[in-house]
């Protein structure tokens, strides 16, 4: 077993039982715990199913379960026992049949207890994420019954630190943008761009590796003359993604988007979203924030065109100290144009064009925390989501308690980014400079890059790179870097370097720059 996996097991504090045990062991003995009887999650005749948009993927050394949507990146490398039973949740077998299959495969000594173990495994797949259920569109994993992804137990590795192939790839088609927003976090340096044909070759690589989440990062894709060719190529390869724009979308462009099904709200169809940026109902303020004259009228026209074509754009607003009190007016104005989805996020520090006066004050944050739920409640027919950050300072105890539960840095573990020129890096929010580039898709294949030394070195940096920081002598250094990793972007934004403990680390002693 590779050393990093052994350490990873330690990080996760896995049970003492070895991952692999001798063949005829009983599940009851292995689980070795007394349980109170509890009701099954399903009745015997129920037909539970793996729900869309969850997909199973043969990830070479294990079975991966991921949510195939651009909305939120969620994935699990299935434990062997989950991998054993989940492929039977096609919605065509009753729970009684699944129980029989379980008993047939596990051959337990104490069947009743073993069935309770199955119930527990199933419950863990029902909440908090709705992975298995009785109603809803079934997962596409069972569409081709001759090709259901199955685990290879002869070489099954679990747990693992990173997936064999990225789950998600972000593509920067261009760094160009029609706007020049004061709050934009993007670097937007001048960058050579891959041709249409070169992007198609890249997309083919993704497709051949089974990558379905190919979302867009960077600037405005409509700045490229071949944008519809690229979008067509992405749709043809069944990618899920969201297109975000500040360009004016004419009726002609709208029709082309509608033909591609981008921004169409259809249940059970691969989600492809469309986002229109709106920051103010005051045309002057909107233009000042975006650097585009008459911006509000352009956004209204774009929204009306999209809605007229049957599309459902999401209206996105970045709340700053200048427009923080306009959420209700934005919802009123754009819902009157037919928009049904809204998202409000708070301004965060940009590495490239930051200005402190854009930050929301504590009072503004608290006010939003009170008013936004009321706005949501007042519009039950609309989807309104907002970032609820009150700016409350965490106590040392809270920071200490939260750190072990921090979000995994998916860069290099499950996701990566392709820049306009084919360079690959691991996070869209760190500078596009040679030190942060781990390869280029014009010169190497995606797998060569993903499994190459540069990625390994980037996500497992040497301790010497942290000289002068609390990390350099930290006893948890290996645990930190071989497990969940940490947020490079936060470390860079708060302290000026990638190789430093982020503000969320309980051992960080320096006072960080404000991030949100």
């Amino acid at each position, binding site marked *: 077993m590779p050393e990093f996996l052994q350490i990873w097991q330690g990080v996760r504090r896995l*049970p003492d039982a*070895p991952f*692999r*045990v*001798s063949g005829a*062991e009983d*599940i009851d003995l*292995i689980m070795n715990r007394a349980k109170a009887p509890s009701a099954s999650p399903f009745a015997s005749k129920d037909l539970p199913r793996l729900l869309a948009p969850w997909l199973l993927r043969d990830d070479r050394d294990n079975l991966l379960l991921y949510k195939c949507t651009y909305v*939120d990146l*969620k994935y*699990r490398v*299935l*434990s*062997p*026992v989950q991998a054993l039973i989940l492929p039977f949740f096609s919605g065509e077998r009753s729970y*009684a*049949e699944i129980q*029989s*299959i379980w*008993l*047939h*495969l596990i051959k337990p000594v104490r069947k009743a207890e073993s069935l309770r*173990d199955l119930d527990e*495994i199933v419950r*863990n797949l029902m909440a908090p*994420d709705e992975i298995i259920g009785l109603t809803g569109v079934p997962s596409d994993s069972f569409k081709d019954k001759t090709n259901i992804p*199955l*685990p290879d*137990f*002869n070489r099954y590795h*679990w*747990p693992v630190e*990173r997936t064999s192939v990225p789950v998600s790839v*972000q593509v920067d088609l261009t760094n160009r*943008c029609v706007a020049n*927003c004061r*709050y*934009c976090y993007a670097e937007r340096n001048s960058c050579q761009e891959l041709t249409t044909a070169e992007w198609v070759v890249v997309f083919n690589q993704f497709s051949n590796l089974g990558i379905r989440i190919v979302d*867009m*990062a960077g600037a405005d894709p409509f700045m490229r003359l071949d944008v519809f060719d690229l979008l067509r190529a992405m749709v043809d390869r069944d990618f899920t993604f969201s297109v*975000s*724009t500040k360009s004016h979308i004419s009726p002609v462009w709208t029709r082309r988007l509608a033909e591609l099904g981008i921004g169409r709200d259809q249940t059970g169809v691969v989600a492809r979203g469309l986002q229109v940026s709106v920051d103010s109902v005051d045309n002057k303020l909107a233009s000042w924030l975006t650097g585009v004259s008459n911006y509000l009228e352009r956004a209204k026209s774009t929204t009306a065109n999209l809605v007229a074509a049957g599309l459902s754009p*999401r209206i*996105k607003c970045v709340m700053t100290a200048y427009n923080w009190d306009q959420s209700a007016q934005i919802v009123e104005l754009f819902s009157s144009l037919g928009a049904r989805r809204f*998202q409000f*996020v708070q*301004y*965060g520090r*940009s590495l490239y064009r930051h200005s402190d006066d854009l930050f929301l004050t504590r009072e503004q944050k608290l006010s939003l925390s009170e008013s936004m739920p009321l706005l949501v409640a007042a519009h039950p027919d609309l989807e309104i989501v907002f*970032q*609820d*950050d009150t700016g409350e300072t965490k106590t040392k105890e809270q920071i200490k308690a939260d750190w072990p539960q921090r*979000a995994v840095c998916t860069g290099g*573990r*499950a*996701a990566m980014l392709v820049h306009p020129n084919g360079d690959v890096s691991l996070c869209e929010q760190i500078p596009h400079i040679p030190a942060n580039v781990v390869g280029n898709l014009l010169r190497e294949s995606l797998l060569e890059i993903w499994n190459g030394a540069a990625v390994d070195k980037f996500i497992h940096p040497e301790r010497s790179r942290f000289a002068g920081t609390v990390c350099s002598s930290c006893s948890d250094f290996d645990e930190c870097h071989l497990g969940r990793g940490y947020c490079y*972007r*936060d470390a860079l934004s708060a302290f000026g370097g990638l190789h430093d403990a982020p503000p969320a680390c309980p051992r960080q002693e320096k006072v960080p720059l404000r*991030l*949100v």
Partner: protein
Amino acid sequence: MPDASEGRRKFLKTALISAGAVIGAVFARKAAFASVAQDPLVRDMANRSRNASIATHDDKGAALCNKASCNPGCQDGCSNGCQSSCKSGKA
């Protein structure tokens, strides 16, 4: 005085029905097991798992965190999960 043979008849009848139900249930279960064993996917999975043992510590199923978050301010988990479109400065 109640007829003892009538009582015995009823008892025997009940016992026979009960025994029949038990035997029926056992056969039904065996039949269900037999049909499960014939399922090609079950056979395939049984073959795949035959020589490899499967420890069953489930650990809630998440070997990797299932809530990645890259947005400043939602490191504790955005209510909508990680969204590229959630990022503060994204159009």
